[in-house]
């Protein structure tokens, strides 16, 4: 009989060393479980109180740019409780989108999200991200660090959307993609400018002793990269490598996030120093194939499909899927279990509970 109502007791308290060891493909007591986002209805069921979602309180930055004066990361105490309930080894502070701003009609500085930046001239009129934007995140890191004192729960920051901030919010997908071929100076300038900020950002969070860094940039969909590998190797790879460098120099592991099929760029990510690849989008990646090809060089994370079994399957389907993932990905260490995207409200709570319980059951070494 599968337990679907409550999270069962698990072995091994939340411990960032477990996660870091998994990233480095070293022995662990159990496969870590990891979710970037647990949405508010699940959180409320878990805590018995409203607490927002695990990336934010007061808004939803996972769905778009939010007003950072209104929206903040989940309150530290709530997140510590979440980690203890499900055995997650670290808490995440969201700083996904690079904050370029302009004044609105009231003179207030707001992040650009209207896809109106079409050329260098438009870009140079914007207010660039600065130390204030970094300080805002550092404040939350300190808050989280204080709240986790006496525990072994770690802290990381989700950041670094080098291209996605532009194509999703500032330039627009079609115009950004066309400009990659037709207006390279524009693309070079915006990527370079963003890179310089993100390097400073990374240096700052490393100085604040985050336990690992989590750069995220959606660069592919289910059939492959958005842009040709040649372009990516020239324009994106060196910049993302520079962004990660402060962490790698400090010996801090790197988990990298992108949706989609990443076959054409995985070797570059490994060469850059990425330790763990997340979330292994099941619509582009076969986890068995990736384990064979990269399992001895890369920690693999995610892949339990939020459509099926998590949203549309039964608890039996969920448990079976977790077990199948474990059979392939657990041997040899280097596996961080979790969903292929996030625990959205649409996923039945019973399936979320089943997934976590199954990860703990089948993930013991």
């Amino acid at each position: 009989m599968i337990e679907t109502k409550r999270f069962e007791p698990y072995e091994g308290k939340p411990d960032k060393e477990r996660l870091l060891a998994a990233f480095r493909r070293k022995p662990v007591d159990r496969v870590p479980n990891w979710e970037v986002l647990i949405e508010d209805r699940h959180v409320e069921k878990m805590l018995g109180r409203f607490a927002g979602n695990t990336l934010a309180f007061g808004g939803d930055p996972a769905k778009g740019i939010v007003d950072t004066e209104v929206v903040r990361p989940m309150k530290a105490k709530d997140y510590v409780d979440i980690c203890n309930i499900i055995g997650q080894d670290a808490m995440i502070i969201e700083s996904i989108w690079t904050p370029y701003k302009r004044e609105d009609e009231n003179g207030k500085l707001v992040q650009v999200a209207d896809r109106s930046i079409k050329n260098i001239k438009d870009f140079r009129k914007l207010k660039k991200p600065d130390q204030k934007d970094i300080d805002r995140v550092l404040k939350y890191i300190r808050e989280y660090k204080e709240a986790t004192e006496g525990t072994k729960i770690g802290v990381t920051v989700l950041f670094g959307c080098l291209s996605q901030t532009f194509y999703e919010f500032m330039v627009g997908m079609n115009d950004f993609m066309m400009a990659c071929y037709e207006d390279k100076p524009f693309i070079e300038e915006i990527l370079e400018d963003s890179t310089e900020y993100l390097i400073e950002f990374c240096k700052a969070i490393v100085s604040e002793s985050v336990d690992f860094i989590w750069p995220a940039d959606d660069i592919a969909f289910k059939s492959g990269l958005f842009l040709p590998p040649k372009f990516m190797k020239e324009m994106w790879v060196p910049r993302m490598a520079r962004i990660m460098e402060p962490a790698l120099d400090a010996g801090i592991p790197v988990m990298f996030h992108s949706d989609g099929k990443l076959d054409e760029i995985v070797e570059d990510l490994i060469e850059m120093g990425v330790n763990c690849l997340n979330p292994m989008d099941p619509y582009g990646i076969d986890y068995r194939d990736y384990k064979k090809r990269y399992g001895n060089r890369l920690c693999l994370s995610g892949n339990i499909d939020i459509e099926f079994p998590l949203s549309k399957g039964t608890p039996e389907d969920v448990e079976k899927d977790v077990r199948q993932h474990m059979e392939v990905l657990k041997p040899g260490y280097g596996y961080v279990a979790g969903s292929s995207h996030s625990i959205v409200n649409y996923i039945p709570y019973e399936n979320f509970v089943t997934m976590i319980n199954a990860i703990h059951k089948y993930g013991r070494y």
Partner: protein
Amino acid sequence: MISIKTTVIYNISKEVLDKLFLKERRPKVVAIMEDIYSATLKGNYKEIASLVKKALGEGIDIKTIINEGLSAAMIEVGDRFSTGELYIPDMLLSAKTMKEAMALLKPLIKGDKNIASKGTIVIGTVKGDVHDIGKNLVITMAEGRGFKVVDLGIDVDYSVFVDAIKKYSPKIVGFSGLLTTTLANLPEHIKAIEDAGLRSSVILAVGGAPVTRDFADRYGIEIYAPDASIASKEFVKAVEK
């Protein structure tokens, strides 16, 4: 790609003879059509206008220019995009090339029943979803196949789809969504169309990363496509039924 045939005909009008003469495809005609195909395939939008003018000057009819040059090339673009040989900018440049050509040809097409649009498609990303990569690619491919596409944008409310159906009388209504969480709004979209009494007048289509054939069947959606190229082929099949 372009075949050359010879036929012996008796008692034929000058008009038909002219068309037959073109059907024999003089080498110059073949060369121009190949250039149009190639320019579209490679996304050479700066050259296409002069090539189209050249084609018209050689007496090549508009339907041939579109079907055997522009659209045929877009079909290959879509196929090569599906297999990962071409990337998003390649597809966009080819689409831009076709658009440039169509801008020249459209004024000449008006009223020509032989070159009717395949119909109108209304498309948008479902309520709550802000992703539009897939939707924009579908639009590119559908226009390449001769459809008129009305883009409703992202995070489209139920009533906006309904109003668009009333305004544009589309043959096909397409829903795009990236997340299971937002595709969960699809039943409400369909219900809104049903409540407005419009369901039987449209063919529904759905696409997006988590979408499957089962998902489409579950909600009675006629067209499901895993990528933009297949979507445009399915649209053509659906309207030609």
